[in-house]
């Protein structure tokens, strides 16, 4: 069934006739007969729209979400409220159905929204330049590492073991072609031990080959276990080894914590999902990426800049285009073309809606809930902290029952209890609390967990 092709049968006949053809098939005379698909695609016939809507509703209904499975999982995807205003504005079809702003005269809406987004991300990161987005936190980390290795001419990256393990996996996969060596920096009680790493490798010692010296150090705060692990603890090592410092931050925690820029980051990246994107089974999310001024010409992806038109009016354009793949081709440092603009527009609206005091309050509310639930759970017999460092909006527990079993049993009680994690050879459960979680939900969670681990 073709719902979206406007041509009538008469249109088809007439247009084919204008071309001297008789059948639609004649349009494909340039496709060799041996390659033609006999009998069409092996798929069902098209469905009426109401049937499509019903099937999609059936699929949606086959997932447990919301009050049916109250979410205490995080790990890079958080159950924050997305207000009606964000959905309404980011859902406007002018933003949803436009293309990359290659014609700025008719794309000032998207360009200005991205300019405002870049400004907000730059302020969160404490660095002067943010790009117009990459795909997600994982690929933002990969882009940051590629930038740092290109800037230093090195091929080794030291990565905190507090980096999200799925991001660590993506980094390994996506840099395999270039032979990037990844060295994992161990955690001690939840925070990265950069000094011990530097000492064990003695990379800064006299006469050491620079070949094995790192081109980038990647730290995360809060890290995957929820621990506050400030980047400045890696700053001395970065200076001694000549590596660039890449800081993974969280845009919600940014309401309370020092910025990566203040802590010496050359590049800062974040998963932007908490700023206006639904959890949506993992995407589309938002890779936030900001750099120090010296690295702007290595910035991956699109960058919007302010300028003027011929009449002197304020105008916005994509700029420093010579960095990008369509011009630089095989010499480009990144291949990104399509990005996550619509999610960035939603984040712009969300950040403006939150506002300066609202971001602080959001972070505080997450931290309060985290404190409340963590304290209550630590009173449950057999439950201990997995690591000891201070946490903000997420925490890891050691439990007397395997974490995946706990997750299964807690689902029967109506909770998505968290995510199984591992630290220092011990297994645990990673639990996140957002501003959405009520005291009543947390009390019920504690009672359920007590039953489940008993």
């Amino acid at each position, binding site marked *: 069934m073709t719902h979206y092709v406007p*041509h009538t049968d008469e249109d088809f006949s007439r247009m084919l006739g204008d071309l001297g053809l008789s059948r639609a098939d004649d349009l494909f005379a340039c496709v060799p007969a041996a390659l033609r698909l006999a009998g069409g695609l092996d798929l069902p016939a098209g469905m009426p729209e109401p049937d499509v809507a019903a099937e999609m509703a059936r699929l949606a209904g086959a997932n447990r979400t919301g009050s049916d499975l109250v979410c205490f999982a995080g790990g890079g995807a958080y159950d924050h409220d997305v207000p009606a205003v964000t959905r309404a504005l980011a859902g406007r079809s002018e*933003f949803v159905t436009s293309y*990359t702003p290659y014609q700025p005269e008719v794309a000032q809406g*998207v360009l200005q929204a991205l300019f405002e987004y870049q400004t907000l991300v730059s302020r969160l990161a404490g660095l002067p330049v943010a790009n117009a987005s990459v795909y997600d936190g994982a690929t933002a980390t990969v882009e940051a590492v590629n930038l740092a290795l290109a800037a230093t001419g090195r091929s080794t990256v030291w990565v905190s073991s507090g980096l999200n393990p799925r991001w660590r996996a993506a980094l390994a996969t996506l840099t395999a072609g270039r032979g990037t060596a990844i060295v994992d920096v161990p955690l001690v009680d939840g925070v990265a031990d950069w000094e011990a790493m530097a000492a064990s490798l003695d990379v800064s010692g006299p006469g050491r080959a620079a070949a094995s010296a790192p081109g980038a150090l990647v730290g995360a705060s809060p890290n995957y276990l929820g621990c506050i692990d400030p980047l400045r603890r890696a700053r001395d090592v970065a200076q001694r080894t000549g590596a660039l410092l890449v800081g993974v931050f969280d845009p919600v925690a940014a309401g309370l914590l020092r910025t990566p820029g203040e802590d010496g980051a050359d590049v800062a990246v974040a998963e932007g999902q908490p700023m206006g994107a639904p959890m949506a089974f993992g995407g589309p999310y938002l890779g936030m990426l900001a750099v120090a*001024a010296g690295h702007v010409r290595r910035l991956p992806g699109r960058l919007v800049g302010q300028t003027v038109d011929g009449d002197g009016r304020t105008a916005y354009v994509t700029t420093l285009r010579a960095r990008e793949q369509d011009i630089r081709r095989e010499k480009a440092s990144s291949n990104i073309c*399509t990005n996550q603009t619509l999610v960035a527009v939603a984040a712009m609206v969300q950040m403006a809606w939150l506002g300066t005091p*609202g971001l602080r309050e959001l972070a505080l509310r997450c931290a309060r809930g985290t404190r409340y639930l963590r304290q209550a759970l630590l009173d449950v017999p057999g439950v201990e902290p997995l690591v000891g460092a201070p946490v903000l909006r997420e925490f890891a527990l050691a439990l007397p029952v395997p974490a995946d079993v706990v997750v299964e049993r807690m689902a029967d009680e109506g909770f998505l209890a968290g995510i199984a994690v591992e630290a220092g050879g011990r297994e645990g459960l990673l639990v996140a609390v957002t501003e959405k979680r009520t005291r009543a939900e947390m009390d019920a969670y504690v009672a359920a967990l007590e039953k489940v681990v008993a």
Partner: protein
Amino acid sequence: MTGAAPGGRARSAPLLGHDAEPTIFDFSVPGRRAASFRTTGVPEWTAEQLVPAEELRPEPPPLAEISERDLVAHVTRLAHRQYSVDMGAYPLGSCTMKYNPKVCDEAAALAGLTGAHPATPASYAQGWLALLWGLSDALCRITGMHAATLQPPAGAAGELTGLLLMRAWHQGHGRSPSKVLIPDSAHGTNPASVSLAGYRTVSLPSDNRGLVSPETLRQHLDDDVAGIMLTNPNTLGLFEEDIAQLAAAVHDAAGLVYYDGANLNAILGVTRPGDMGFDIVHLNLHKTFAVPHGGGGPGAGPVAVTKALSDLLPGPVPKRLDDGSFVWEQPARSIGRVHGWHGNALALARAWAYILANGADGLQKVSEAAVLNANWLLSRLRGVYSVPFDRPAMHEVVVSTKAAPGMQAGVRALDVGKRLLEKGFHAPTVYFPLVVPEALMIEPTETESPETVAARASALVEIAAENPEDLALAPRTTPIGRADEARAARSLVPTWDARAKPL
């Protein structure tokens, strides 16, 4: 024609000008706020009680302080300064800016899809796994492939994933070739992805047909070639007629054949990459399968492969069990993961709704109408614009203002595009592919009516009769005129804060 009005053309300037819209920061007033939070009953500890003093920033980062009403007014006015497919035709060649069905928007907004945490165990996310499995299966049927990953979040990400699969496949056979062949008409993402995969690009010249010839290919083939990346139809809108021989020659040299799915919209139900001899295929769901482009993204770039490569796919991938339930499975020799979670899931959901609505019959009609519109448009431009490779077109056409039979000398493609903006259309892609000077690359797509295609053709013909000096003044009816791009790069103002002191 019927005499009906062209639905894809705006008769008067559709966007708001002439003065600049202030920024969100210009509206900011200390103390104004929009945010509100739910009542939770959680104890109200202070920041100082919750965060170690040395980590606590004294002030929150300055964002904006604005009322919800002012925020809505500002962003709505920004929307009114933005052209979109919903507003009218958007014939950017190689971008496939087709209409995005609203039923897909509603599907992607269902709470049962948007509310699912990606770490939800498979047993409680059966709807999502069924959807992803169904989409994978359909994409394999459409492309003639065996298995797919839905993780790559965009076309370029799919390219890199595909090239890393190529690399892993060679490594599995004890080989480490260093070169990948790419036609000179290819998208810039192709060579950029090749470099990121650790390969070296070797450019293949197009022949006088605008195609890759088997002879040229053979001259470049040796045992150091990992494979070839081809778009078919290619970026000139032409079908690579020798594709079967090209693929066989690469296979004979122990290379793999990569299909860039940017132009799949031309061949749905007509032929399949698998039948042409391709081993690895990436698809742009935001082109062919109507996922809206969102002002530049998000898209989705799934990668499908032959059986021989399926063990290498990124994972986990959804698997259907005999009882009809779904689980995650890691391919046996997986290269790893290429996304933080499962890919741009809501984009995948939109594509699935689109495939359900169209089905086998509808998808084939999509390609027929897309190719019909393109050829019909070309027939109206021939004799006015030059047609550098005048062969039967597929879904898009490339014409040029250089040596155009019906135009004064010196008209630039850029100027034609800018003048079109004044005439109520979006401009086509200009200056791509690079092998055609002063190129205008026009892709009408199947969703534009014959009246709209005819109106666009007439507009292009009218513009051809204008003198070059007048064209260079366009556009004058848009919110801004031509911007000073040199100044933007020379005196970089990437944030509101940098206005006083550009970088």
